[in-house]
C-alpha cells in the first residue's frame, strides 16, 4: 500500500518507509551517539527551559489546591463534598475510576505491545509508563480520602491487631485494595528496572559530580555485561507477561465494585471487558495529550514520529468500538431483560434531569472520534489528534459520571430518589489531581530519561549484525 497523495511531497517521502508504505518508526539518519545525546541532553542540561518553569508553576498551583482541599477534608470530613444519600459515591469514585483507567494505556504499551513485538512502542513506552504511575498515584488517593477516616485506611490490610479483627475477603472493595496496590507496585518496579541501563548511560555522560552520584546510585552499577543483559531481557519479558494479566484484572476488579451490586445500571456482566476497553481508550488519549506537546517542545519528532501517533489513533479506534458495543449492549439489555427497573434506568439516563451528561459522553466518545479516526490524514495531524485526545478524556470522565451518578440517584423507590451536585471542594480536588499529575510528569521529564535509550538503539540500522568481512577474519 503506497498512498499516492503522500508520495508526491519529498519531505513526507523521506519520512515514509518504502518497504511498508508506513511512516518510519524512527526518522532516518540516527546513530547510537545521536540518539543518546538527544535524550541525555534533555536531562543533563544546566539550563531548564522557561516554558518548563511556567508549566510547573501552573501545575504546582493546582496541586497546592489539592493540598488545601484535602487538608480541609481531613479537618471537617467528607460532608464538604457533594455526596449524600442516595449518591454516596460521587466525584471521588468517578475520579478514581477515571485515573486508574488512564494508567492502563501505559501498561498496555509497555507490556502487551512488548509481548506482541511491536517495536514502534519503544519510543513512547517510558513516558507512557510514567503516566501510568502518576495516574495511579492520583487514583489511589481517592478511595483513601473517601473512607472518611483516612488515617485508619491501613485497617484494610490483613495484619494482626489488638482488636483481633480481620478483613472480609468476599467483598470486591477489598479485592480492589489488592488489585490497585499490586498494580502500583509492579508498575513502579517495571518502570524502574527499565530505566536502570539508561541511568548507567546518564551516569557516564553526566558532567556534574552531583548528577554522577545521583545517576550512579540509581543505575546500581549497571555496566552492560551481556550476561546481565540476558537476565535483564528475561526479567523484562517476564514482567511484561505478568503485567498483562494484571492490567486486565485491575479494571475488571474495579468493575466488580459496581457489577456485584444489585443496582440497575451496575448489575451487568458486560462491565469487566467494557471497563478494560474504556480504560485503554482513555489511556491512549492521555498518552496523546502528553506525547504531542512533548515531541514538539523537546524536538523529538525524529523519535516519536507520525507512525506512533497514527498507531495510537488506530488503537483508539478499535477500543472505541468496543466501548461503543458496551454502550449499545447496555441499551439492548435494558429492553431485552424486560426488567422495568432496567428500562427506567436507561430512559432516565438518556432523558432524565441529568440526561445531558449521557449525550456529552455519546458525542465525545462515539460521535467525534469514531467517525473521524478512520482518516489517515486526520490521524497524522497533530493538532487534530491533540483535540481528539482531549475530547475522549472528557468523554470518558463523563462515562464514569453517568455510570455512577445516574444509576444511583434514582434507583427503585421514588421516595428514595435524590440528586447530586458537586461542591467547590469536589472540583478543587479533581483539578488538584490534574495539577499533581502534570507536576509529577514535568519532574519526570526534567530529571529522568523519558525515552528508553537502550531500546531505541536496538532499532537503529547500526544494530544490524553485518556478515563477516573476509579481510577482518580473526587471524
Amino acid at each position, binding site marked *: 500500500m503506497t498512498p499516492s497523495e503522500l508520495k508526491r511531497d519529498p519531505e513526507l517521502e523521506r519520512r515514509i518507509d518504502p518497504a511498508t508504505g508506513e511512516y518510519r518508526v524512527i526518522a532516518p539518519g540516527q546513530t547510537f551517539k545521536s540518539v543518546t545525546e538527544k535524550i541525555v541532553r534533555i536531562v543533563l542540561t544546566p539550563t531548564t527551559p522557561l516554558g518548563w518553569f511556567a508549566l510547573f508553576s501552573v501545575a504546582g498551583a493546582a496541586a497546592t489546591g489539592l493540598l488545601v482541599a484535602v487538608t480541609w477534608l481531613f479537618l471537617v470530613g467528607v460532608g464538604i463534598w457533594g455526596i449524600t444519600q442516595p449518591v454516596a459515591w460521587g466525584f471521588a469514585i468517578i475520579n478514581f475510576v477515571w485515573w486508574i483507567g488512564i494508567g492502563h494505556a501505559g501498561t498496555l504499551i509497555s507490556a502487551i505491545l512488548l509481548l506482541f513485538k511491536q517495536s514502534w512502542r519503544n519510543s513512547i513506552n517510558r513516558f507512557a509508563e510514567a503516566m501510568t504511575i502518576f495516574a495511579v498515584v492520583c487514583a489511589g488517593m481517592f478511595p483513601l480520602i473517601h473512607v472518611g477516616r483516612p488515617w485508619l485506611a491501613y485497617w484494610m490490610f490483613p495484619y494482626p491487631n489488638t482488636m483481633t479483627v480481620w478483613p472480609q475477603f468476599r467483598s470486591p472493595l477489598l479485592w480492589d485494595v489488592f488489585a490497585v496496590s499490586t498494580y502500583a507496585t509492579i508498575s513502579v518496579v517495571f518502570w524502574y528496572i527499565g530505566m536502570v541501563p539508561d541511568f548507567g548511560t546518564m551516569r557516564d555522560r553526566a558532567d556534574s559530580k552531583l548528577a554522577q552520584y545521583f545517576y*550512579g546510585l540509581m543505575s546500581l552499577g*549497571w*555496566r552492560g555485561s*551481556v550476561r546481565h543483559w540476558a*537476565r535483564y531481557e528475561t*526479567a523484562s519479558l517476564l514482567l511484561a507477561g505478568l503485567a498483562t494479566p494484571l492490567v486486565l484484572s485491575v479494571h475488571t476488579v474495579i468493575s466488580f465494585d459496581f457489577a456485584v451490586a444489585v443496582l440497575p445500571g451496575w448489575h451487568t456482566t458486560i462491565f469487566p471487558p467494557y471497563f478494560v476497553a474504556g480504560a485503554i481508550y482513555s489511556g491512549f488519549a492521555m498518552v496523546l495529550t502528553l506525547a504531542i506537546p512533548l515531541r514538539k517542545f523537546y524536538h523529538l519528532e525524529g523519535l516519536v514520529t507520525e507512525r506512533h501517533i497514527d498507531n495510537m489513533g488506530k488503537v483508539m479506534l478499535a477500543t472505541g468500538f468496543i466501548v461503543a458495543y458496551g454502550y449499545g449492549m447496555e441499551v439492548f439489555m435494558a429492553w431485552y431483560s424486560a426488567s422495568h427497573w432496567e428500562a427506567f434506568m436507561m430512559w432516565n439516563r438518556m432523558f432524565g434531569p441529568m440526561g445531558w451528561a449521557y449525550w456529552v459522553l455519546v458525542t465525545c466518545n462515539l460521535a467525534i472520534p469514531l467517525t473521524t479516526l478512520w482518516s489517515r490524514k486526520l490521524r497524522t495531524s497533530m493538532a487534530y489528534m491533540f483535540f481528539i485526545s482531549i475530547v475522549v478524556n472528557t468523554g470518558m470522565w463523563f462515562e464514569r459520571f453517568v455510570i455512577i451518578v445516574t444509576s444511583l440517584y434514582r434507583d427503585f423507590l421514588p421516595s428514595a430518589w435524590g440528586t447530586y451536585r458537586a461542591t467547590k471542594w469536589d472540583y478543587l480536588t479533581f483539578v488538584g489531581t490534574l495539577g499533581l499529575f502534570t507536576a509529577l510528569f514535568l519532574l519526570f521529564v526534567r530529571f529522568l530519561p523519558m525515552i528508553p535509550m537502550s531500546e531505541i*538503539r536496538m532499532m537503529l540500522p547500526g544494530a544490524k549484525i553485518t556478515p*563477516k568481512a573476509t579481510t577482518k577474519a580473526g*587471524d
Partner: protein
Amino acid sequence: MPAREGTYGLLAEFDTPGDLIRAAQQARKDGWRRMDCYTPYPVEEAAEAIGFHRNEVPLVTLIGGLMGLAAMFLLEVWISVLAYPLNIAGRPLYSWPAFIVPAYEWTILWAGLSAAFGMLALNGLPALYHPLFNAPNFRDGATTDKFFLCLEALDPKFDLIEAKKYLESFQPISVVEVEY
C-alpha cells in the same frame, strides 16, 4: 569482593556489534572461558558467543509466584474459616471463588518482585564499584555506542603480552589493560 591487586583483564573496544561477536566466538573457540562482553543494548548473539545460554530468572519468578499464591490463599482461608468467621449473605465460610482475586494479585506481585530483584541479585547488582570503570574508554562507550570484549586475568590461558597480541589480531579500536 576481596581487595585484589594487579590486572583485572584486557579490554578490546569494537565499533560494531558484528566485530564483537566474531571476536567473542573466536575467543571461545580458542579456549577462553573467563571473559565477558559489554554492550550498550542487549546483544543476544554476543551472550551466545561466550556460551551464556540459559539463566535462572524464570525459575526464581516461578517460585516467587507460587509462594505468593500459597501465602495469600492460605491467609484468606485461615482468616475466613478460623480466625474471624463471618456470615456474609449465608455463604459458606470456605467460599473459595471469592478468594481467587487477592490470591491472583499476590501471585503476580510476588512473581514480579522475584523477577526484578532476582534478576538484580543474579547479576550481582547493585555493585557500584567495578574494576572496568577504571578503563579510560569504558565509561565513554559501553553505555553509549561501543562494544567491548574483556579477557579476564583469572583465565588460566591469560598472559598479559600474549593475550594483548591475541586481542589485537581482531583489529579492535583499542586494547587497554584494566587494573583492579
